[in-house]
């Protein structure tokens, strides 16, 4: 299979027209070429490149929150001083992509595969969100106190998942906590301290 139609769009309008005509979007397309060559996936017939669309770029931090262009790269986000100051975890995550959980409109999402377009207009909470100034949120404090943290690598994702779990079910049973957190892996704690921390906060409510 070879590509018969290739549109390099420079405006969103142009890209939408190509998409309506059945084109598949690509940003750079290198993965597609690799997949095609290794026989894993055939190239689509019609492609629209979106990486030249200026309006999809950029990082803007304003009073109302953060606006990330759909094409803003991890490196751009990580390098933005305003982002680093106000959304440190996001900057760190873009620099090292560890746990991807971010809470958008009350649901945990994997921030590395969640398009900025999808989040447009949403309220987004990262792991810094629940704390105020230098005071940890009750869930964060409980993680520290009850052994919910060892190496810390899974902790941001666990905290976000736990916060969502408690928002949806303020007084969960232990089984409900364990099932609710089963999408996040931890290799250090055996989950014991994490589950105890979530239950302790639930009981305190």
């Amino acid at each position, binding site marked *: 299979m070879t590509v018969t139609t290739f549109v390099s769009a420079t405006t969103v309008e142009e890209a939408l027209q190509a998409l309506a005509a059945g084109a598949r979007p690509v940003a750079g397309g290198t993965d597609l070429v690799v997949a095609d060559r290794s026989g894993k996936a055939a190239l689509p017939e019609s492609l629209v490149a979106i990486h030249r669309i200026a309006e999809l770029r950029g990082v803007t931090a304003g009073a109302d929150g953060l606006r990330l262009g759909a094409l803003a790269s991890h490196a751009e986000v990580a390098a933005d001083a305003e982002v680093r100051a106000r959304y440190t975890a996001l900057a760190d995550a873009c620099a*090292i992509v*560890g*746990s991807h959980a971010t809470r958008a409109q009350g649901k945990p999402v994997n921030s590395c595969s969640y398009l900025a377009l999808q989040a447009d207009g949403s309220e987004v909470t990262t792991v810094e969100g629940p704390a105020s100034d230098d005071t940890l949120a009750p869930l964060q404090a409980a993680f520290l106190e*009850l*052994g919910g*943290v*060892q*190496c*810390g*690598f*899974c902790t941001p994702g666990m905290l976000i998942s736990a916060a969502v779990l408690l928002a949806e079910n303020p007084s969960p049973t232990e*089984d409900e*906590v*364990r*099932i609710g*957190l*089963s*999408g*996040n*892996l*931890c*290799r*250090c*704690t*055996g*989950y*014991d*301290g*994490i*589950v105890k921390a979530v239950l302790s906060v639930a009981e305190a409510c």
Partner: protein
Amino acid sequence: VSRSSYEGAEELGRHRNTLGYSTIVKGDVDAAMASADVVVKARYVTDPVQGVPIEPRAVVAQWQGDRVPVWTSTQVPYAARAGVAHTLQIPESHVRVVVPLLGGGFGAKCDFHFEGHVAALARAARRPVKLVFSRREEFFAVGHRREGMVIELETGARADGTLVAHRARLVLDKGAYCGEGGFFAQMAAMHALGPYVREAVFVESSLVYSNNQPSSSIRAPTAPQVCWALEQHMDELAAALGTDPVELRRRNLIEEGSVTATGQVLEQVTARETLDRAVELIGYRQELPEDEAIGVACGWWHSVVVPSGAYVRLYPDGSGTIATGAQENGTGAVMAMPTYVAAELGMKPEDFSILYQDTDAAPWDMGSCGSQTTFNSARTVIAAAVEVRDQLLDAAADKLEASRDDLELVEGTVRVKGSPDKSVTIVDLAAGGTIHGTGVADVPAPPACDARACAGTHGLESLRAPHWFTHAARVRVDRQTGVVRVLQVAAAHDCGRILNRIGADGQVYGGVVMGIGQALSEGTQLDDQGRHLNAHLTDYKLVTASDAPRIDIAWIETETPNAGPKGSKGVGEPPCVPTAGAVANAIAKVIGARVRALPMTPERVWAAKGQA
């Protein structure tokens, strides 16, 4: 190595590919075996399993003139420094290794691995170079896996349950290279003995090269696999004798004054106490539904004794810094150091910062491996604090015109005992900014032993400050599908005095859950060409929060000869050792058959049940 290597084809160890060979020999095992009333014999195989820290490996190098700083997620910064220097043929003083934060290791980040490659690339490129592994690459990476093993055991006992003869043959798949772990043959041989007394022993252990991914010191290297096999073997013997498995162990466990097969006289042994506590915590004699059962497994571990160095210094404002080569990997062993120093100096833990994870900051340290950080590194930090204490007492004795012996350090002051008014603050004493201590702790010599009959000794024939432990596991087996669920684990450990209860408990919770993964779901599958079939977390299954059971912990705290600071021993590795064995023995009770391959997947449990 291919799939069939672990299923009976015996390619392992048959190609003059042995890199390590160790034996443990005591008495005449043939004669003793012939004199036994009951002999059991069995063969066990284990699939290779992976360390799987959640943070993948990442390394950055950026040359500054003829020096190269390397930022890396390693458990062993000083080994990494030596590795870069050796690889690039530059002096070690030209290499600086910094670990920003370590997202778990479990032994997968031990040994020098990729820092040298990245430094070489950065030198060639004249730019900083970064290497970050994908999850898939983590599964292939050098040193990230445990050995797959073939373990053959034969034990003879008298009708009363006394063990008389023990024969073992082990083959360990080391993979294509041996960066570290040449001592694994002997380590596995010691675990093939386990904490039991026998009249005669012949253990033969071969560490062999293969075309597989190289293995490394994953948490308690070799021990979980060998313990799983030996402890199933003990239960098989109990069945052959018509004895309860707990009673068989109680009769034969090592005790105070026992002599090991390597001729070491053991002191302060609490193996039986751990058995009793685990059995009590799990409720061993309780009535259970027919699809549930309880299994137990015992084991031992040794303390790793190595030198290290540290500095403690006080600033003119009376606060201080601990400079240590120790590496924190989430256990809290380094984070706890300010509490030990503060206790020596009558100060508060928050008065101290820690300068660490930077090879330019502190003397050599082995790093976060061998459960040794508290045992060795904290010992040295405390020695440095004692020097600071001496300097403070000398200075205060001058100022207060009192005898040193009459002084005490309390609440940030040095004062005359019984006269709290006669005191001087540490802030005043430290005002000159020169107060500092250097810690080089005494390293205890290994206890005497006699291993003249043994080949391939690496020092493990003499156990220093040994650990004792027992796990008991209650499991439910679905007989239709072979699916096993671990419902409860009771873990009883002697790790000496517990200095940080939350931290120590955390090691047991995490170790048990890692052991359950190794027991039931974790195993690298190889195809007929030796290629990995499940190099991703979808098919290489870690235990999740909803799989993890209730875990009850008992600490047996005793005074151990040659213990670490404040009577402690290490705690990171032992908790993952006996879990798989306990789970295996519970499974066998439910299905009436042995699962002789690890992990004990539903397929294997179901197949074993069919042979019952």
